[in-house]
């Protein structure tokens, strides 16, 4: 190899390396007529989401000339991707967030506040369902996100199993729920093992457990944060609520111990479809149930401690859903705001929420025939009368992690044959509270 050739090779390698390094810069930023949009995974698959959103994006591009580069991100990665984008300043222009993260992300200061012209561009606060709008940020602050899809928990039950057991009505109180579940927990094939359980839940789901602690806690007169905004996980109300939740697998024996291993909501729906469980709580399983050809099911409100509870004790769900935010450092904030205005317009709200079996977050869209089913009417009523936003504090995310993990560990103990008393629940929640950062 001659020296010149070797020189060329050396330089070539260096140049190639340099090129490959510059080639992996982030895909962030827009250039005049183009914005980047990160969407959360709402449908049964990423591909399905892409197809549904592509239609809506095409209408936007046709009207404005602005192209939208779409990336649908799985839930497992979304938060870390957002944090990375926040810390590097290299992110999308528009992005979806789980609405329970809104306050935490708002406190980072990286997102555009919805006031003034931006608020006007999306038609003002009055167009939106009040409870959904309240999730956009901390109390008394300008929201850093606006609602996009509305969701609410309700109870789903197997109508055929109910009929077979001679149960006419879905249970309205927690006590009735436990009784009904006991009736439906049976050994159908006589082999000495229970193969049909009263209810299914995801014992290892951190968020699912945190939602249960929030809802059951409020029903029992306890909140996860005190009036000063300090974490307070081990008050009597929350302890009683969490105890009700975990004793479904423990004392009540209406949930299969194997449910302690389930990590997410889709696994509960699978249990229900397989006929392993008669009831479960979920937000929007409709698409999955229909896809599996499941017809014998109906939705009912989540049972409360008393049938006619109102106010905080009448909470059946948190105000669940997805919000949309614009990055403060978007290259073309106007195009980004226009795109949010498009996504939250009456027509697109009808189209998108119908496609994703979620609920519109603007009141006008509810007139549409697509949202007249019993289930939608029920969810709408839950959102307007029986739902509270998850605690609107910046440490809400840490709370979900710590409380959800504590409950996961309690389920694990029960599943392995241990017993868990109310005192154990209190102790576990005290431990979780001790790990909360000072806000």
């Amino acid at each position, binding site marked *: 190899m001659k*020296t010149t050739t*070797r*020189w060329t*090779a*050396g*330089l070539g*390698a*260096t140049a*190639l*390396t*340099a090129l490959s*390094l510059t080639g992996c810069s982030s895909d962030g930023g827009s250039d005049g007529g183009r914005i980047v949009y990160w969407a959360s995974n709402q449908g049964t698959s990423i591909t399905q989401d892409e197809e549904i959103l592509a239609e809506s994006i095409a209408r936007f591009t046709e009207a404005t000339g602005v192209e939208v580069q779409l990336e649908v991100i799985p839930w497992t990665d979304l*938060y*870390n991707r957002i*944090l990375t984008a*926040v*810390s590097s*300043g290299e992110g999308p222009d528009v992005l979806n967030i789980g609405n329970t993260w809104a306050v*935490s*992300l708002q*406190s*980072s*200061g*990286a997102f555009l506040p919805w006031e003034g012209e931006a608020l006007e561009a999306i038609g003002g606060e009055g167009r939106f369902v009040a409870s959904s709008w309240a999730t956009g940020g901390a109390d008394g602050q300008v929201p850093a996100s606006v609602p996009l899809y509305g969701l609410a928990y309700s109870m789903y039950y197997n109508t055929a199993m109910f009929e077979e057991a001679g149960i006419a009505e879905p249970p309205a109180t927690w006590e009735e729920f436990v009784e009904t579940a006991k009736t439906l927990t049976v050994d159908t094939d006589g082999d000495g093992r229970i193969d049909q359980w009263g209810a299914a839940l995801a014992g*290892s789901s*951190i968020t699912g457990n945190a939602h249960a602690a929030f809802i059951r806690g409020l029903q029992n007169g306890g909140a996860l944060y005190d009036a000063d905004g300090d974490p307070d996980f081990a008050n009597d109300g929350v302890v009683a609520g969490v105890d009700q939740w975990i004793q479904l697998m423990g004392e009540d024996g209406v949930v*299969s*111990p*194997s449910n*302690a*291993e389930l*990590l997410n909501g889709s696994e509960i729906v699978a249990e229900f479809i397989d006929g392993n469980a008669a009831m479960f709580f979920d937000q929007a399983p409709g698409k999955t149930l229909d896809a599996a050809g499941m017809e014998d099911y109906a939705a009912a409100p989540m049972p409360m401690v008393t049938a006619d509870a109102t106010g905080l004790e009448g909470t059946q769900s948190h105000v669940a859903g997805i919000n949309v935010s614009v990055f403060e450092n978007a290259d073309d904030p106007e195009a980004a705001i226009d795109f949010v205005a498009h996504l939250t317009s009456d027509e697109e709200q009808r189209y998108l929420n119908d496609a994703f079996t979620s609920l519109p977050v603007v009141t006008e869209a509810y007139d549409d025939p697509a949202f007249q089913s019993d289930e939608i009417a029920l969810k709408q009523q839950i959102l307007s009368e029986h739902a509270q936003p998850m605690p609107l504090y*910046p440490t809400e*995310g*840490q709370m979900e*992690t*710590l409380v*959800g*993990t504590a409950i*996961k*560990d309690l389920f*694990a*103990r029960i*599943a*392995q044959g241990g017993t868990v008393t109310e005192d154990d629940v209190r102790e576990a929640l005290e*431990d979780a509270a*001790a*790990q909360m*950062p000072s806000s």
Partner: protein
Amino acid sequence: MSSRRSPHGASAAPRRRRRSPLPYGLVAPAALMELLIHIVPMILGVWIAFLALTQFSIANWVGAPFVWLDNFVAGLDPAGAIGSQFYGALGRTLVFTLVVVAFSWALGMFAAVLLTSRFRGNGWLRTLFLVPYALPSYVGTIAWAFMFNQRDGVVNRILVEDLGILDEGPFWLLGGNAFWVIVVVTVWQFWPFAFLMLLAALQSIPGDVYEAAALDGASLWKQFTRITLPMVRHANVVLLLILGLWIFNQFNVPYVLFGPASPEEATLVSPLIYQQSFNNWNFGVGGAMSVLLLLALLVASAFYIRLVMPKERSIDD
């Protein structure tokens, strides 16, 4: 590797050639990569360990408040909620590392010795043994997660229904058993690497050494302990160090098996750092734990190298 040294230590290359910038040009891309991928992030990590970096300060992380040693105190205080977890995880990770390295090495050695002798199917076995190493870690671990599932997993099916050893299928992914599951899956992932390294080392041992030993009446065990082990000593030193470091930092297996929060009995240090950083958004504390871990591993590695590296290195240099 041929040595360019002459016996008298005089350089064989002319002076002009030594000055050529070509070697630097050739090393530059790798050095640049090393700088960008390892050195810079490491320096940033050390810096983050001294910052109160949470979701409040991440957007402007360069300006996050400097809190001196607060993060280290939080991570190291055995009475604190975070510190107590850290010590527990540290002890558990040590045990985990020892057990996994021991099993991986023993299995690798056994397989390597087995495959140094020629027999039909030798090539097939060699390929088969490397499958776990070739599979993407995520895919293999997901398969293990299915197998260890309490209700529908094949492990419990074999134990309860096929063999009838147990009446009730135990939970493998919850509680104390979870620790042994990560041991099994990690051994499965790493023993092929040990096997590969040891096989290469064994093949460099001349066959006549064994023949001579056999003639002298040395048993197979004696041949193994007196010839094989001393002869692969150098490979062993490096192998055990690399395995130890990799396994101590194990993250993928518990993350795929248990999600973001491992059961307490199976929480290792790396997943704990992840939990602090990405679940609790306490990046400063996560950074402090990482720095402590790095220092501990550096000290342990240096000590190990001093202890086992043969002194005769001076002859080579």
